[in-house]
């Protein structure tokens, strides 16, 4: 048991140390992802309180949060300098793709919100 807790503490320490080494722009994207997922969870909690009518609004709200989180993760993949697959993709292009996909996503959301 004590070995488990010390292992767990060591684990968390090394995780946080390794994470602190990531560049700032990636950390910003990570914060955005956390914010989006938290918003989705709040919406699900609210739905649990008041019921799911109208269902299409609930779906569009939750899926827009999850969608923008997923797109942000894709952006992070493409912008990360450690990723050898994307080393000749300029980050401006990655960001432009991100904006385009978000536009499509939010257009669909606006349509579905009801």
């Amino acid at each position: 048991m004590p070995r488990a807790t010390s292992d767990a503490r060591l684990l968390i320490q090394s995780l946080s140390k390794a994470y602190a080494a990531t560049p700032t722009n990636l950390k910003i994207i990570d914060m955005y992802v956390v914010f989006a997922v938290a918003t989705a969870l709040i919406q699900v909690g609210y739905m649990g309180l008041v019921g799911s009518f109208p269902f299409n609004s609930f779906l569009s709200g939750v899926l827009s949060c999850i969608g923008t989180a997923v797109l942000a993760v894709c952006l992070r993949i493409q912008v990360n300098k450690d990723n050898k697959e994307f080393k000749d993709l300029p980050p401006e292009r990655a960001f432009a793709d991100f904006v385009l996909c978000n536009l499509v996503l939010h257009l669909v959301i606006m349509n579905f919100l009801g």
Partner: protein
Amino acid sequence: LKETSASPPPLLFLLSPHPPELCFSAAMPQTQSSTAASGGGGRLRDAFGGVLCAFTLLLIGLLAFSIRLFSVIKYESVIHEFDPYFNYRVTQFLSKNGVYEFWNWFDDRTWYPLGRVIGGTVYPGLTLTAGTIWWLLNSLNIPLSVETVCVFTAPIFSANASWATYLLTKEARGPGAGLMAAAILAMVPSYISRSVAGSYDNEAVAIFALIFTFYLYVKTLNTGSLFYAALNSLSYFYMVCSWGGYTFIINLIPMHVLLCIVTGRYSSRLYIAYAPLIVLGTLLAALVPVVGFNAVMTSEHFASFLVFIILHVVAMVYYIKGLLTPRLFKVAMTFVITVGLAVCFAVAAVLIALVASSPTKGWSGRSLSLLDPTYASKYIPIIASVSEHQPPTWPSYFMDINVLAFLSCFLPLSDASSFLVLYLVTSVYFSGVMVRLMLVLAPAACILSGIALSGAFSVLTRSMKFQRQTSENAGDGSSNALANSETASKEKPSKKNRKRDKDSEGSSPADHMTEEKLLVLPCGPAAVGIMLLIILSGFYVIHCVWAAAEAYSAPSIVLTSRSHDGLHVFDDFREAYGWMRHNTDVDDKVASWWDYGYQTTAMANRTVLVDNNTWNNTHIATVGTAMASPEKEAWEIFSSLDVKYVLVVFGGLIGYPSDDINKFLWMVRIGGGVFPHIKEADYLRDGNYCVDAHGTPTMLNSLMYKLCYYRFVETDGKGFDRVRRYEIGKKHFKLTHFEEVFTTHHWMVRVYKLKPQKNRVRGKLKLKPAGRSSSKANSMRKIGGKKNPWQ
């Protein structure tokens, strides 16, 4: 996310596009000298190759368009079969009234007295596409009618589909294979059967959308670009709009992602290809009214969500693995697994309880009948009775995809080709369940055999080219074959003359990331191989053209037959619908079996009780019961539904086998499924279905028998039925509750009118109708049959 520490096998180089020389060698065997390696010569060759590719694609598109025009040439530019007439009617409405009216249209001319919400129950892709084309052409002052646009939509989109096949195969293998696959798809009979000019059905645009969606998915997987992911979602949206078969895509792609994860091919491009598609795709699918909330609530979509979660878990695992040292990672894994398994079990238990509570486990009836082929025949006779839902026979495989059944190649194995293999295997399974789904198998078969043929051709032509250039032997040893098809086994490899291609000229073997030596054969067998392959392709082309001309071009609304005294044309269907259009009131209701519902509403413009949509089993069972009951009971059922005319199709005079007497047993089965007083055994004599003198009295008294054979004995004096091939049982009888108003020229369609009730009832049975029905009930109980719900 960082790149994975356990990198996938070094196959990334294979994803780089092949040089245009491959396009060259597949197109023409004699190429320019390969020693023109200067930059200018190379660019000129590239440009020439590109132009040749484009020109070949144009020819392939023309081929796909023109091979489907046989029906227009042999018959006329008319809409075929049954379902296309409904789509045609909807397109007419759309072109006349605009999009908003179309979305909100409630159709009261069908399923009387229930009506049908068209906006919410139709897949709008096809009608919107054709409507857009019509509107575009008319705004350019090209005055094509709606019917012309509808008839030619399918050939246009089959040309588009072959171009999409070129793109997909080019992504998976290279331009040469792409051209081959596109040419094969342009002609494959199973696709022609559903997309001939005049077959205005959902599959005409849906197959194009399917291939194009797969192409964009493979392209996103290969390039990892979010732009293509967005395009992929939009193309998936178009597919959802077009066809109910979109569930194939939304289950195949998760299967492929799972396969990639399990075989260790996880990469960040996989995440980019899959995750945005699921989120955007689900939203877009939910936008289409006919799918609606089914996009998140039915079992058909659960696989995609499950794999979505699994993918995120795997991505997180790879990310953490990159952050930590291996020892700490092991600690993290043990910790996560113990907690994670507990959570997983809880969630799975909840999910299983939810799903098990619904009787069909969340799947719709049609999907269940695909997964369990015996489901439909046990529970839903309507689905089992549709002819295109029967399992195919072995010869139909050869008829529909011909030699492609024996050609297939998927080396080298990459993400894209593993996807194609999975596509082929699943579509083979589903085509074995339902003959209609041979159509989904066709593109897979075409692509893989295109790769095989192109590979074979490139090996053979390279052999011939290389034999002519070099004369010294420089090599020994075996090598891997590039083409793995059965036809390659026709070539006789000889160990002595194997040479090493180009490795001797260019970089040293250590530069190549694999030890793949390219196979080169001696000149003689290579030439023989090329000849044989060309002959094989020639057989394929001949078969396709024959199938298109003879087997799949019949519009089935006009029939022809050749006899010694020339060509007979049977236009009885349109004759009957035209008569009804001009000789009945606009508000009259017509009752017939559901096969003819769409045609009746579209051509005769009358309200029908049941049509090909078959969404209400009880209503169809009502009509079936009426057809199977004696005259009086049938009259009462029909008059309770305000029916004025009854239509039957009868083929006994000319030998047309798909008439209502042959479909009658299905009417009995479906009616008996809902109303138990109709028992199938009553209509069979010793288990045989017959309408001659041995027929059971229930059979010979049924409305269908009477309406079909009324006055039939007057045609030849004996009443010989040319379809059943015997004389009928009851020859001379009168109709008491119906009167014949129209019979077409060849007796194929017969229209009857319900006689109005008598004003005055004579005899013992006085004015009270209750008295009449009570005596009827007494007589029924005397016979001992089940209680008839209409009395």
